[in-house]
């Protein structure tokens, strides 16, 4: 971690306590999360790994206010999510959270620039031009701004998506398998970008992935299995992470 990240300090931006999430009822009930307590401090890059069905996606969805826990609490920047109504939750996602999806999820009818500015447009806010310029240079898509997603490569689309997630300077960016649909070159580019956002902009990033190589870009590695955190520590090299995964899988 370099100096630029220090501006976030070690303040805990995202906190979850004893999160439980149960799907279904009775005998068929499945506990996707069986009591997860975790905190993400500002300006750090965390990776959440785990085998299929470990609950890693569910955890991210609940942390991001997309899903509600069966019990437990989530706080983002001090705001208790589980007590918010849909409208307030929407507002919170709009202002405080950035999203990066595996499938990019750009709007095909908007061009690159419009897609990046979409969160601001939705909020009815004027973009900060300086920030916008800095962002597009960082992600390197200045010459692709007027293109629609159909005219962009997967890597370019995901870079637009990263810029979209950062444009509102969110409290935290959640990335769901951001490199899952990309070839290794594009994948590295996007992961470098996230790393860069944390290091240079002090952005807080939480990434869910099943790819040990992707996880190696993070500062911290969390491993989930059967709805519980089974590992929480410094990031590991891909090989070590793989071994760890094998042991829990």
């Amino acid at each position: 971690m370099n100096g630029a990240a220090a501006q976030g300090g070690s303040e805990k931006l995202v906190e979850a306590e004893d999160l439980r999430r149960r799907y279904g009822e009775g005998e068929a009930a499945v506990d996707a999360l069986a009591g997860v307590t975790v905190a993400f401090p500002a300006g750090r890059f965390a990776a959440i790994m785990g085998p299929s069905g470990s609950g890693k996606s569910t955890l991210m969805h609940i942390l991001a206010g997309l899903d509600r826990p069966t019990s437990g609490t989530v706080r983002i920047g001090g705001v208790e999510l589980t007590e918010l109504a849909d409208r307030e939750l929407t507002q919170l996602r709009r202002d405080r959270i950035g999203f990066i999806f595996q499938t990019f999820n750009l709007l095909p009818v908007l061009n690159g620039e419009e897609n990046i500015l979409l969160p601001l447009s939705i909020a009815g806010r004027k973009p900060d031009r300086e920030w916008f310029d800095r962002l597009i240079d960082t992600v390197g898509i200045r010459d692709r701004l007027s293109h629609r997603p159909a005219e962009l490569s997967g890597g370019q689309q995901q870079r637009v998506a990263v810029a979209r997630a950062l444009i509102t300077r969110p409290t935290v960016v959640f990335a769901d398998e951001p490199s899952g649909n990309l070839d290794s070159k594009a994948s590295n580019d996007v992961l470098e970008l996230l790393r860069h956002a944390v290091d240079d902009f002090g952005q807080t990033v939480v990434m869910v992935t099943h790819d040990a190589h992707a996880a190696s870009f993070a500062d911290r590695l969390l491993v989930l299995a059967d709805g519980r955190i089974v590992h929480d520590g410094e990031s590991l090299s891909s090989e070590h992470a793989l071994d760890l995964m094998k042991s829990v899988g």
Partner: protein
Amino acid sequence: MLSLVLRGFMQRKLRVLLTGIAIALGVALMAGTYILTDTINKSFAGIFNVANRGHDVVITPRQSLGRNTRSKTSPVTDQILAQVRATPGVAEAAGSIFTPGSFLDVHGKRLTVGGAPAFIGSEVPKRFESFTVAHGRFATNANEVAIDEATANRNNLKLGEKMVVAGSAPARDYTIVGILRFGGGQSFGGAGAAILTLPEAQRVLALPGHFDQIDVAAESNPAHPVSASVLRERIRAVLPATVDVRTGVQQAAKDTSDLESNLSFIRTFLLVFAYVALVVGAFIIFNTFSITVAQRTREFGLLRTLGGSRRQIMQSVVYEGLLLGVGGAVLGLLGGLVLAPALNALFKAFGADLPHNGTVLETRTIVVSLLVGIVVTLLAGLPPALRATRVPPLAAMREGVEIPPRPLPSRRALIARTVGLLLVCVLLGLAAGGGVVLVLLLLAWAWWLGKTLLRVRRGGGPPHYRLVPALAQVIGVLVTWRGVTGQLARENSIRQPGRTLITAGALTVGLALVAFVAVLADGTKATINRAVSRSFAGDLIIENSQEGNREQGIPALLAPTVRQVSGVASVTPVAFTVGRLPGSSSNATITAIDPATFERVYRVEWKQGSNATLLGLGNEGVVLTKGYAESKHLKLGQTISMLTPAEKHVSLTVRGIASDNARLLGNLTITLALARASFGQRDDALDFVSYAPGATNAQVQPAVNRLLAAAFPQARSRTAAQFKQDQANQINTLLALIYVLLALSVIVSLFGIVNTLILSIYERTRELGMMRAIGTSRRQVRQMIRYESVITALIGGVFGLVIGVVGAVLVTSLTLSGSGYVQSIPVGTLAILLVVAAVAGLLAAQLPARRAARLDMLQALMSE
């Protein structure tokens, strides 16, 4: 395959329901029309059966020129009655009167509503009487009247009260001594009957010694029974050819069939709207099937990979259409049962109250409704089904494989197809009786041509409809200022221009017709206004005050009476009659005028001849309108023979040719004297009044009105301005009726918009999920869908208005050029139509918008 289709249906209940309703509404209007008109016909048949019960033989005036020539002196006279009575085998014969007149209360208010007829009748001997006394008794002297129960109830008239009966003599009042019920208690519709004594009825109608009908009962001596048909033969042998002699059974059948053909226009009129709704429904089915086929590309690809044949793919789609067609048609048929009384209520609200006893559901109604519903659905689903067969097996493997477009045919083939389609449309249209059907088919053809041209310009690639994006850009301004939701709505609306075009097209059909009719009506009003201003030189027009008063004239006595009012310089009666050229099957319209005074009140646009020609017409001269002379190749000086309503043949020499934009002059113009002498014309249609120099309307019109109220309460006076307003009101009433009926098509097209939106939202599930995730509120999602719907609806609206206006202008300038038709575009009405389209779009978006806003975000994000 069928079970697969059924399972698919169960998974898409809402869409199946919406699509089914789209076809069901058209079928419902069709079934409702048949049910209503069958019911009305059956009711009339019942009425006529009762009316002719106990009549072995019936003698009526011969009406070679059809039933609508009533205003004539009946050839059935006392003398004929005497001849009938003298015929062996006749037990009893009685003459009677049953002629339309006017009933009013003592304050001059009409007792019948709308255009419903009021019959003045005379009592007949017991065995012929179809009325029974409910309260009181029949009239026994000239001061008494018995009236039908419905009229009495509607106006709250009681025994002992007074009412006015107006015919051809000056009106007077009568004391009500009886309330009558028509045999069997059947509804008479809105019609009324007032039964006077025979001499009084004859006096009121200025028909002393004449009857409308003679009823005959045969001798019932068991020793020498005389059958009705034998008696008919005997009577026929002694009576002149100016009367018809029928058995009671024949007469009832004749009355029924006459009436059916008179009312057949109602069926045709309503069916046109049913066809329009069906065309719109077909659009929706085509569109829905096209979209679902596109969405199921992968599924079809999989079926193909697993070894499914093209035929099986096609079958699965066609079965879906078949099921939908059957469901929609059955639903429509049931809807027809509900709609029939609603249609009747609608007609009643617009002044046409026809009898309807029970509900008649003929087998024909069931068969035709089901067949039409199913066939339309199948035909509309066929192109998408064919398209589905072109899905390559590869589609199962890869995302985003599209169905390859059909290769564009060669230019020559395209031109041949275009011309061929045009011919088919024109021939079909003409076969269906031209008119609206023809216009509809031509519109469909123009639509096809437009689509093809757009495709040709793109050079064979996938059809890309340039007009839609361009229009959406313009219309989008309405919503894009609202921010990103508006912008996204606009972009989404043009994502699939073809789909938007067809969705909007369903609305276009209805709105184009509304615009077409609105422009036509506005032009007609303008034409009437100008024609009245140009041609009418008098000060007042006197006419019957009953709505739709073309049939109901005013007494001939009225003109000489009004002439006595101080300030009146002249009164010019005008009468309308008909005649028939030998060998022709249709009637020529004839206007009868008073040559001495006509030029004072009316400006004739002479082509050949002058006002002096009128003075020289005499009993054998005729003036033709230019159009009629041209169509019959008649020239000045030629002599023609005319069969008159009085069953006489008259020779007429063409003395002049005129054009008449006001359409007062019929095909032929003759003198009133000739009309009275040879055409049996009794009443007049209109009286034109001109004032003496110095007399003002403020003095004269009230004086005329006082006279009318006292002696001829069925008539009213109108200034030229009032007359124009009356005409405009009549057109507006018809217009309103047409709007109500076209509204059904617009409603059908709304279902199409709903359907397309729901399907599009389904396609964009993941996008919506993402938008919600990054902070789009539910309200914004709803807004976006609504805006998209409004844009689509407005695209349909703009196309509809353009097609309707251009169509109306084209049709009128092609068919009415030279007739003095004045083009007029009702800008206000058209603007309102656009607003209606936008509101319709908003309405259609309600359900889809709510569904989109309620999408489960997580599932949406994870959906494919």
